[in-house]
């Protein structure tokens, strides 16, 4: 039954079919609008990054052109090697990697240990000590900055990996997350493991931690992101003739020394962004889980 007949012969059937068709058309229009809106938003969000990539591949003079080139016709890949060598990016990336990985591994271990104790063991002041751990989340970093700089300097850790990593080896957030995950483990399982002769240590590593693996992964991604993107602490805790800059501070230095070569600075920024882009694409689920841990409920 097509539109022609339904117009001349308005039987209930025809009206129904026409309405269905109209509804379908309306739905398709709404779908198209929805996609159009999503795509427009995506373009706006990606535009700065896209322009950064394009400009990083332009010749110096091309950057000033109007209208700005939207595509690098003769990509200048050597901008990247200039940024890499003159910005000492390999050293700074290595520094960032060492510090971030140390922080992630340590935070996972300290969080598992403390989270396990708070979830499975009974001891005096357990609740108080847990609240003490949570209270650290209320202390903003800038309040501890002045004294931590003193402490690290007097320990001889100024401009060292220890100075960059040690203040962050534990996190109240991680302890909170792992305690929650451990509390979700059924009591029967714990009793069964006890009857099989599992002590606490074996139960922790053979049963509890494997069961909490998604949470551990979420914490790992979250702490890596936080550690890699630190700015203020590596800025104040490094210096001297051979500064142990992380890649973030290295970028600041690159911008300062290559002030007249914007394409090189941008190439450096793109290089610094790539590890995190990979992190986002591979671990999106874990990242979202950790970032929303406090949002709902």
């Amino acid at each position: 039954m097509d539109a022609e007949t339904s117009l001349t012969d308005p039987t209930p059937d025809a009206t129904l079919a026409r309405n269905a068709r109209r509804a379908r058309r309306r739905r398709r229009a709404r779908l198209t609008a929805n996609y159009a809106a999503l795509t427009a938003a995506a373009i706006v969000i990606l535009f700065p990054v896209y322009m950064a990539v394009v400009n990083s591949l332009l010749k110096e003079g091309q950057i000033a052109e109007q209208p700005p080139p939207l595509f690098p016709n003769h990509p200048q890949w050597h901008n990247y090697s200039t940024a890499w060598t003159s910005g000492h990016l390999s050293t700074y990336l290595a520094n960032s990697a060492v510090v971030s990985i140390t922080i992630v591994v340590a935070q996972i271990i300290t969080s598992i240990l403390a989270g396990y104790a708070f979830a499975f063991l009974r001891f005096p002041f357990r609740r108080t000590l847990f609240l003490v751990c949570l209270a650290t989340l209320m202390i903003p970093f800038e309040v501890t900055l002045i004294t931590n700089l003193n402490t690290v300097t007097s320990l001889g850790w100024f401009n060292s990996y220890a100075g960059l990593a040690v203040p962050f080896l534990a996190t109240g957030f991680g302890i909170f997350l792992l305690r929650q995950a451990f509390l979700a483990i059924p009591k029967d399982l714990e009793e069964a493991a006890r009857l099989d002769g599992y002590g606490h240590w074996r139960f922790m590593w053979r049963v509890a931690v494997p069961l909490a693996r998604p949470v551990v992964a979420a914490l790992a991604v979250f702490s890596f992101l936080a550690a890699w993107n630190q700015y203020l602490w590596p800025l104040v805790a490094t210096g001297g003739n051979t500064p142990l800059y992380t890649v973030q501070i290295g970028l600041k230095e690159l911008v300062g020394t290559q002030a007249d070569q914007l394409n090189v600075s941008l190439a450096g920024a793109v290089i610094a962004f790539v590890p995190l882009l990979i992190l986002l694409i591979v671990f999106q689920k874990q990242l979202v889980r950790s970032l929303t841990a406090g949002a709902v409920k």
Partner: protein
Amino acid sequence: MTTVELSPPRLLHSRRSRLRREALLGYGLVLPALAVFAVFSFYPFIRNFKVALYQSPPVPGLPSRYVGLHQFGHVLSSSNFLESLLTTVIFVALVVPISLLLGLVLAVAAQRKLAGLRIYRTIFSSTVVSSVAVAAVVFGTLMNPIVGLLPWLGISTQPPLLENTTWALPAIAVMSIWQFLGLSFIIMSAGLQSVPEEVLEASRIDGATAWTRFWRVTIPLLSPTIFFAIVVGTIYAFQTFGQIDILIGFSNDPARLHTNVLIYNIVTTLQQENNAGAAAVMSIALFVLTLLLTLVQMRFLEKRVSYGR
């Protein structure tokens, strides 16, 4: 006979020692984390109050002088602090509402189940991984007067945007909005997913339009999430340091005074003026602001929960 008499105390003894061993293990497991917190969170937090009571010497190396609460009055009433506080408030007012609204709009748009939505979600969340330094370099160069983009769009770069007393702070806010948008989107999406489908369905059956449903059902149910996002966003905005350090810090131009947010003020007071005492007072002020905000959020959430169920 004798064995029966002996066994209860022995049992009790073994139970007590088991409990003691469990407690010892507990303390042992908590110790590494608590040691880090003690040295790098609680000690500096407490000592910060002491630092705030001493006036730093004019030349580093000389002993600092005890001035007590006097320093609080002096610093908190100084025009430097008050202007800095005002700049911070303006900055928060620019960044937080806009990024939260945009995040909510994106979350609503990306909520319906569509093919290919995963890619859009990845793009919308992507700015959460961009570091402060990367964002600063990307936006800073695009705003650079040498680059053709802004003049071509008809935006004047004379004086350069980041050296302009009126536009430097909004320009940095644009950067921060972009950077916070990813997290805002993620939080709002999670909140939307937690809105129960049955409630929406019930209001649909009652004949509520999509618009009414959104404002009368979704938004009220989402309000704890929105409030959480406000707190997270405000704390994020309070800690905006890197962008200003990279883009404005180098120059001694007038824009610096107009982007002197509290955290930046604290660090320059500490590092360039060697005035730890004044920096400590300002950091306490920032802490109190953050604390008040979090307490308000907790009160709000408690209320929601008791109304809700």
